[in-house]
């Protein structure tokens, strides 16, 4: 397995997963906004912050002080070619990673990814209006999942496959922390502070929905949604496939199939222990931001260890 091929396999699924989560995040928040009464304001700004693209956004919209409008933010998150995290950029990056390793994966995966990217490039403008947004974003989510399904169903579980799994797992762990962060930092701002408690539940349901976790939460937790329980589910549940703990377990399960590298195991153990030690009740109380940042830094270190071990030989 060439290092370059491993690197591209990893980024191919990472960007694919990033695209899927971005589409979900915008979709769910667009819905949430429609549910809110008039005296409650929905702020799009925190979405930019949690995705770490506020500076890039500010450069494009220098006059938007503090409160960015829906049209600008949605365009930026979905279609901005200059943002590394926009939906279109993610799909394009996924496609470019795949292009140079087409020969190593089933031909249909290239056709699907290429087709999805070209379709979004041609039709993305329509998603900016609310009328078609849901339909179009659902189609992107479906398109990404079809490719994931093809990979799961049709690719041999060889060394290369482990890199596909690593890319998906790391990206999902990262996106889960970012979506938690967005939810915890107050997308909803009631004008009257008395209403705050009531809307916090709405907000956490929307976070769970962004991660397709609401139904699984209900089945497993069997309690009404509270910030602390939602946080525990998304961070520490061992069975929900988009929880951070589950994703890190997946990373752990691939390592025996790869040439052993101590630095990788060390970086993984470190971020696992941060997640395990998170006090979700306290996080619900004081806001999850600092903890999410710590986990993200741990994930970056894990990525660096993987890149050093396998991609830069």
């Amino acid at each position, binding site marked *: *397995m*060439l*290092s*370059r091929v*491993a690197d591209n396999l990893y980024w191919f699924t990472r960007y694919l997963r990033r695209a899927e989560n971005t589409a979900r995040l915008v979709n769910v928040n667009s819905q949430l906004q429609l549910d809110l009464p008039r005296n409650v304001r929905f702020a799009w700004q925190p979405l930019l912050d949690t995705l770490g693209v506020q500076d890039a956004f500010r450069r494009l919209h220098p006059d938007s002080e503090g409160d960015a409008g829906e049209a600008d933010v949605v365009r930026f998150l979905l279609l901005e070619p200059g943002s590394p995290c926009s939906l279109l950029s993610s799909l394009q990056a996924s496609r470019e990673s795949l*292009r*140079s390793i*087409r*020969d190593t994966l089933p031909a249909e995966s290239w056709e699907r990814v290429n087709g999805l990217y070209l379709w979004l490039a041609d039709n993305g403008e329509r998603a900016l209006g609310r009328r078609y947004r849901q339909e179009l974003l659902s189609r992107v989510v479906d398109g990404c999942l079809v490719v994931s399904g093809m990979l799961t169903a049709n690719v041999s579980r060889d060394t290369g496959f482990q890199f596909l799994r690593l890319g998906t797992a790391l990206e999902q762990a990262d996106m889960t922390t970012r979506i938690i962060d967005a939810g915890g930092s107050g997308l909803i701002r009631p004008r009257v502070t008395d209403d705050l408690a009531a809307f916090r539940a709405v907000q956490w349901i929307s976070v769970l929905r962004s991660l397709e976790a609401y139904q699984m939460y209900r089945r497993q937790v069997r309690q009404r949604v509270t910030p602390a329980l939602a946080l525990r589910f998304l961070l520490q549940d061992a069975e929900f496939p988009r929880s951070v703990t589950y994703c890190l377990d997946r990373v752990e399960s691939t390592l025996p199939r790869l040439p052993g590298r101590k630095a990788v195991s060390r970086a993984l153990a470190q971020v696992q222990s941060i997640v395990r030690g998170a006090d979700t009740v306290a996080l619900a109380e004081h806001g999850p931001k600092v903890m999410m940042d710590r986990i993200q830094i741990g994930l970056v270190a894990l990525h660096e260890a993987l890149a050093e071990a396998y991609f830069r*030989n």
Partner: protein
Amino acid sequence: MDWSRYRPPSYDELIQADGQPRASARRLIEYITGLSRKELAERQLAADLAAREMGVTFTVYSEGRNVDRTLPFDVIPRVIPRSEWARTEAGLRQRVQALNLFIDDIYGEQRILRDKVVPRSILKESVNFREQCVGIRPPLGVWAHICGSDLVRDGDGTLYVLEDNLRIPSGVSYLLENRLVAKRVFPELFETTAILPVDDYPAQLYDTLAALSPRPGEQPVIALLTPGIYNSAYFEHCYLAQSMGVELVEGGDLFVGDDDVCYMRTVYGPRRVDVIYRRVDDLYIDPECFIADSVLGVRGLIRSWRAGKVALANAPGAGVADDKVVYAYVPKMIRYYLDQDPILPNVPTYLCDDARQRKYVLEHLAELVVKPANESGGYGMLVGPRSTKRQREQFAKLILARPRNYIAQPTLSLSTAPVVTETGPQPRHLDLRPFVLSRHDIYVTTGGLTRVAMKKGSLVVNSSQGGGAKDTWIVDFEESA
């Protein structure tokens, strides 16, 4: 299918001057005649679909975007009788053997120059002569392991060698895929006709490369070096790497260590590479040796090759025999090195560097084709019969300014074969590119890639300019009763 209005302008590969099919093509023509125009169109459609499904593409880079195009494929095969092919194959073996001896001699003792069979001036202004390769002795004395020679047939039926591609000839993947498509489209004919198979090529190529390994006795590690996804032949690089089961690598995947050994970067750490089938041009292959800012190559690769730690196919510098001036001397080389008469004729060639020949060329510009010695792809040519007086005057000046740089040949009337069009079968010009592999022995593909100009009257068969391809059948028609 009605042939009554089929009127080839010149020698036709399938139909004789009297309108009857050639003996080797009789069964095929009878079969096609039995199909309605609609049925034939359906077969053509099936072939187009099959080609697209198999992903037979070449890449065109335009307007900043990369587009994969399907190579147009015409379903009516070109047929060559086995007896004629046997002679052609023998001629190619002889020719490639002589060419390899020539290259080895040029980078070695230069006997052929000392004996004045080929003038020393030939190296002057040769853009493909590599000073850096002088004195190197590649394994088996072979430089051009893979050669693609272009053959054309003139109006009287004679098959000529038009040029030899000794650098990085491409197209063999289309040859192999065309056969798969043809089998899907005409399965009946493959049952009743003795068509010789072509699918041995990847195994033969693998053996050719493996024979070069500097570590004989051990399983060699072989890699195909591609310039990457933006190269027009990237499909072929993937195809060959996959069908041989070798690693497809880019320049950045390789490095040469302090021990002069070439390594691949893998997830298990560095892994030694023994043989590289390089599809990157000489000049880009090693920034330490040639173009310094090339990002396609591998720093130190020539050092490793010189030290005998890695084998390169084709060897850098092999293109010295790719020159159209050198081409003119190939019949003499065959006599000089092999003491044999050439089996396949060259197209008669006038060298403008020679005063007497130059005088003839300048007096007959309107009849001749003038070509620059070192361009490929049909660029910078003068086609006399289709030229204007001004163009001829311009070329006369060019020739006088740099005589070494030009050759001239009589205008050939290229042979044709029928292709399927909306108005029935129509004659189109074509050529043939067989591939020749050299190691201890020499292997020639069964037939070759038939390239066909899809436009009426056009002589341009290049895929980049709208040319297409046909399957090429070597038929043992005496056996296929």
